[in-house]
Structure formats: structure tokens, C-alpha cells
């Protein structure tokens, strides 16, 4: 493309149908404890 550079390949929608297994870390257990930082967690499926 000449005008647009897409920098990621993921599509959140594809993760919705098979998501929610709950294996991942609860977000507040990592470092924050005073804020909610979900998007930096890893999928552990």
C-alpha cells in the first residue's frame, strides 16, 4: 500500500470466539496494584 502501513497482524475478533480460558495472569498481580493494565498481559493458552 502506498498510503497506509499496517503494523500488526492480529485481529482481536478472532480471539473472542475461543477466548476466556482464564489461564492467564490476573492483571493486578504483576506490578501495578494501583491501576488496571490488562493489555500488557500475555495469553497463556
Amino acid at each position: 500500500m502506498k498510503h497506509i502501513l499496517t503494523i500488526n497482524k492480529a485481529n482481536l475478533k478472532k480471539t473472542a470466539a475461543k477466548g476466556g480460558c482464564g489461564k492467564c495472569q490476573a492483571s493486578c498481580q504483576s506490578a501495578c496494584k494501583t491501576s488496571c493494565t490488562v493489555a500488557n498481559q500475555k495469553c497463556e493458552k
Partner: protein
Amino acid sequence: MIHKYKLNGLNIVLDVHSGGVHLVDELTYDILDNVEPPFADECPEKVVEKLSRFYAPEDINSCYKEVVELYNDGILFSEDDYERFAKYSVAAPVKAMCLLVEQDCNLRCEYCFASTGDYGLGKRMHMDFETGKKAMDFLLENSGDRENLELDFFGGEPLMNWDVVKQLVEYGRSKEAEYGKRFRFTITTNGMLLDEEKMDFINKEMSNVVMSVDGRKCVNDRVRKRVDGTGCYDRIMDKYKQLAEKRNYENYYVRGTFTKYNLDFAEDVVHLYNEGFDQISVEPVVAEPTMGYALTERDLPAIFSEYEKLANIILEHDKQGKHFNFFHFMLDLDQGPCAIKRLRGCGSGNEYVAITPEGDIYPCHQFVGYDEYKMGNLNDGSFNMEMKNDFAKAHIYTKEECKKCWAKFYCSGGCNANNFIYAGNILNSYKLACEMQKKRLECAIMIKAAKALEEVEKNAE
């Protein structure tokens, strides 16, 4: 819904519902103000006419086609069809626990949300082994099919009750095979009581360790004080270095708080990096606006500018091969959490609870001391399932402000405790935190975009 912004010379477009991130030229940036689905095959004449004052019509048309192509690929102007998944946000097993093994502290940090250890309850307490054991049994029994159980030793200062920490780790390990589960222990410490024995135990048993320090000595010591009023920096820094080194600088954070006193907090992040740490978190203080150190809306321009500065520092360091993680800028655009996790948020009160030395159950450590949010007690076996369900339903589609926010899949509805304490209800948004979160997200995406562009340019050479 899209969110577009300019930062660091880049034009960035986030497609909110697919998570697609695009770097665009000026023409695309402008055209996106003028078009939206449903799309015709050709660019509408009035758009061409409007933009042809600045761009060539053939460029406008070719740009329009690219926009339509991305729309057809589902990564631009993608629809919000997640609400149906929100129904999964109920009745999740409890899988994570914050154990307040010590409701006392050997520091008197000015901004402590736990009121320097006692959570405003006026009594300083230790958790005994029996209560800790009950807490772990509660987690084992209520975790359903979850195999990974998280238990954070928290306080106050957990090292003040070290024998119980060790006993509980041993107890937890002894139950893993029986229940077919694995404990991930973590600990958050102020470092004052660290010694070789504790370090070795932590490094053997804890999957993550959070070491509290605010950055530069002058910044740290102004607010992180011992009981006698002197700062703690000199006592803890060498211990932290030793602890991190002993665990090969893996799975740890040095974690600080910035306040109105250090709006130049990027300097503190750099300081921690220069002291040898590469996993760094420095987070905004959460406090009543009347406190001298509290951040308020008037501080936002300075905070935004500092986050931008920090983002640039990270990029510059990266170019020199000096890598470090800043926790609040960490973002995985390709393999981050699934959309369901992002709907649910942190899971407090539903998947995650906090336990006090008296065996009281709260939705998380920050709710401790708020009677109306006491969920139950381990000694009488009570556990308020109605409240658990209320927390399960506190997701981005029940939070009105979040529903329409472009950042909703990254902060996932924000911190329920902050929402309650500073905005009156877990479903309300705590605006100050939202504004900072959005800025951090813009910076984090910009860092990813800048690196992606650099890669493309390198490959083109």
C-alpha cells in the same frame, strides 16, 4: 470506531474493535475525517472536491481504495460486536489472591493507600499460619478448573511476617499435586528486611518479585520514609541489585510511584535503568486531591509531556541496544490477551480477592477497610456470591463511559477500586486515571509503530 492521533511525527490510526494499528500519510489522516462505512466503490465526489484543494484527485482516489480494502479486511472501521461475549463474564472461578500477611509496615510512605500498613483500620496485625492456610484452601477449593493459581504476598510489608510466608509457601506446594494445580507465588516488598536467606527463598519460590523504590534518592526519600523520618533509599538499593542479580534479572520489577513532587518522573525511570534494572514500573500516585502530593487534572499537561519524553528516551535507548521495559508502556499488539479477558478487566471481586489477617475477604487489596465491600470471612465460611456476580458484571459494556471509549480494550474498564473510591461507583470512570491511561497507550502504540517503521525502512535499504 477508530482513534487517530499524531505523535512524534507519526500519524497513527487505531482500529478499536479489531486492534489493528496503522501508520498513515497526511492524506489518509485527512480522508479518515471525511469517510465512513458503508463505502461506495469510488471516493464520494464531495470528498474529492473538498480534499483536492490539498491533494491530487488521483491520490485521493487511490487512498480511498486502500481505506476500503482495510475495511473489507476487517481492520479499519470494524464493528463493535463484542457485547454478546460479555455474558461470559459471570461465575468465573477464583484464581488469584492477594494475601495481606502483614497489616503493618516498617516504612511510613506519605502516599500509602494502605495508610502505611493498617489500611486505615487503626490496628496493625500479622496473619497467622492458620488463617493463611484457610486462605489457600479457599483458593484451592474455589478455583474450579483453573490450574494456575496466583498468590501475592502483600502487606503492609510481608517480610515482617517472614516465617508465615515460608510456611505458607511450603503448605501451598504440598497441596499442588493433590489438587492438580500450580501456585505462582509473588511478593511485593519495600526491601528493608531483605537478607541473603530471604533473597534465596524468594528467588527459589516466587515467580515474580516487586521491589518498591521511587527512583532518584531525593525523590524516593522525600516520601518513602522510615519511622524516624529518614529516607530508605540507601538501605534498599544494594539489596535490590543483589536480589535482581541473583535471579538473573528475570521476573522482577522495581516499582515506584510518581507524585506531584516529581512530575519529571522520566528521570526516575532513567535513574533506575542506570542503576542496573531493566524491568521498571513507575506509576501515578492515587490519592485524594487535597493531599499535597496528589496529582490533579491541572498536572495532566506536564504528565502527558513527561510520558512523551519517556517514550522517546526508550526509543533512543533501544537504538543504542539498551533495552528496558517500562511496565505501563508494555503492549503486545499481536499476542496480547484475548478479547474476553479484555472485556473482563482485572477480575477483582470475581477471579481475584484479597484476604486480611482476620480472614476477611475483599474484592482486592484496595477495597480493604471499606466495610460495604467486605465479601465474607474465612472463619465463618461466608462469601457474598451476589457481590461476586456484581463484580463479574463490571465489564466494559456495563461501564457507560468505557463502552464508547477508544481505549476500552487496553485498560478494560480501569481499576474498580479507584472507580469506587474516586468516582463513587465501580461502574463509573475515574477520569484522571483514564486520561493518563489513554496517553500511556498512545505512547506505547507510538513506540511499536516507530519500531515497525524502522524495520520496514531497514528492509527497504
